[in-house]
């Protein structure tokens, strides 16, 4: 039945064997117009999108959970700082002297504040990422402060929104090590939530978003900053006689662009808060509220940049 008389393409296919894989890093990056030594400031090198090898806060679209450490609750999140001078490029391995994720920055700041409040003169000397924890190494000016710093760990968990904080002190180097364990999975696992926003809004978000910021970060910042004015977003209208509500057909005729999909990663608690807000402020659905929040945040960032 089959036709063996034909010349098979396989006879013509005599490729060389696969070579060895090129070890990472696979690139010889041509220097970009980025000066890492320059003093960071708005619109300069430190604003740039993380370069190859740097780990962004959120992974690709296939992931359904956000990496630990980025989960936040809208109502408990601290106001977004516009101080960009702390933004740095991350290094994949080894200790760093500056935190690279928003959560680590928050933890480091909170830790140093608590130590200062306790009368301990301390400064951050290293940050290490572990799969379920972050290690913050803090240098102490006086060796007698070591035990006090270690004792402080017991009360730090709540401040740092962590499941547990362990501390140790090395007398020789005068370094106190704080290992911050993030909250265990279930309750804090951020899940992907699709929302639909007009394409213009998505484009505008892409223009104003900070390079190191995820869409989720952008949403959380918008939620925090505009929560107070949300009541005015969707005023309740009295039902009155009038024309029929516009149908999709009419919308098409008016050439209003159809929405595009975006996604945010929210913990169940954050999602519930969002849903409560949708109901409370009469937004109708999550997408409508998020779209409006994005518009407000875009406006305020543009205003801040001009």
């Amino acid at each position, binding site marked *: 039945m089959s036709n063996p008389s034909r010349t098979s393409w396989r006879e013509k296919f005599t490729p060389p064997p696969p070579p060895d894989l*090129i070890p990472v890093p696979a690139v010889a990056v*041509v220097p970009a117009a980025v000066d890492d030594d320059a003093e960071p400031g708005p619109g300069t090198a430190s604003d740039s999108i993380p370069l190859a090898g740097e780990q962004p806060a959120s992974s690709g679209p296939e992931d359904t959970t956000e990496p630990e450490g980025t989960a936040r609750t809208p109502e408990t999140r601290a106001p977004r700082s516009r101080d960009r001078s702390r933004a740095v490029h991350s290094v994949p391995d080894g200790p760093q002297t500056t935190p690279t994720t928003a959560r680590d920055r928050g933890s480091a700041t909170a830790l140093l504040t608590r130590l200062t409040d306790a009368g301990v003169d301390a400064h951050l000397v290293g940050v290490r990422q572990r799969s379920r924890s972050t290690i913050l190494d803090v240098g102490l000016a006086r060796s007698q402060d070591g035990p006090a710093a270690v004792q402080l760990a017991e009360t730090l968990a709540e401040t740092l929104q962590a499941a547990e904080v362990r501390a140790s002190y090395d007398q020789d180097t005068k370094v106190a090590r704080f290992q911050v364990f993030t909250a265990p999975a279930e309750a804090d696992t951020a899940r992907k939530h699709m929302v639909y926003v007009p394409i213009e809004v998505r484009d505008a978000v*892409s223009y104003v978003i900070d390079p190191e910021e995820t869409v989720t970060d952008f949403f959380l910042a918008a939620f925090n900053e505009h929560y107070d004015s949300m009541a005015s977003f969707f005023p309740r209208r009295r039902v009155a006689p009038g024309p029929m509500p516009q149908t999709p057909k009419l919308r098409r005729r008016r050439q209003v662009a159809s929405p595009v999909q975006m996604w945010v990663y929210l913990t169940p608690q954050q999602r519930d808060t969002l849903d409560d807000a949708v109901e409370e402020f009469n937004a109708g659905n999550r997408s409508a509220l998020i779209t409006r929040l994005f518009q407000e945040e875009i406006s305020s960032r543009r205003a801040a940049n001009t």
Partner: protein
Amino acid sequence: MLRRSILVSNSKGGVGKTSLTAHLAGLAAEANYRVLAVDLDPQGNLGRDLNYLGSDGDDRGQGLLEAIQFGREVTPIRDVRPGLDVVCGGPFVEDATKLETNFSKRGRDPHLVLEQALAPIAGQYHLIVIDSPPGDRYLQMIGLCAAQYVIVPTRSDEASLDGLNGLADAFVQARETNPALELLGVVLFGIGASATVIQREVRAKIAAGLGDVAPVFTAQIRYLEAPAVEARNRGMLVHEYERDLVAKAPRWIDRKRRGKHHAPPADLAVRVAPTAHKLAGDYAELATEFLNAVMSREQQLAAAGGAS
């Protein structure tokens, strides 16, 4: 520059870029290479050739756009064929062009964004094949700045050869950012097998236009519409179509004999393009020549590096 990465490009559309990308990547994967195919084309036609269009992993270029925009690690669709992963293209990729000035404002070289997006995963692959869009200058440029080699498919018509010259301008510009970029060769695509005079003329024009910087591959892809269309409609590469359908199909004489007095049985009802083995053979020859060219060039570069 991403090592062992090849951009398939021509400023003219319809010259076989996507087909060539799919087949070179697919055949390299057949030869046990780990291959990453990257679709930079907003039309996203690579998904049709490799049959992942509309699948769960097909994000229509959103992942690639966000990787470019935010510097995130791109997440390819794994194993669309054994050993072949794909970074999807689609309408979202077009939005990258709007970000060009944004990158510049933020002190980021707008031409290196693709390289930066692919660099974290490049080490997992023996070969990266990038399909470039025809019209978009910026997308073509980020492809040129990410790749080590360029392959240029061209047809015999003047417009295709003009497209080749258009690419030459972009190539010169890209070399300022990516000095390691090399033109691996030109592929004659969709040329009549018996049109030897035309073939000779086209080769002469290419040589006149590009000098000796661009060797023309000996292997060429002839114009055989039926197997090309049939394979693409089935989401198969031509060699897969030939191997899985045509080679197993009965010869036309058997088909005719058995269908004479009765309705043809189910196995004979499948219409197959009998010339598929010729087209598959062309792609196989070209892939062999292409892989040999890449590997021998790599050895030359290694020897030159060792000597210096």
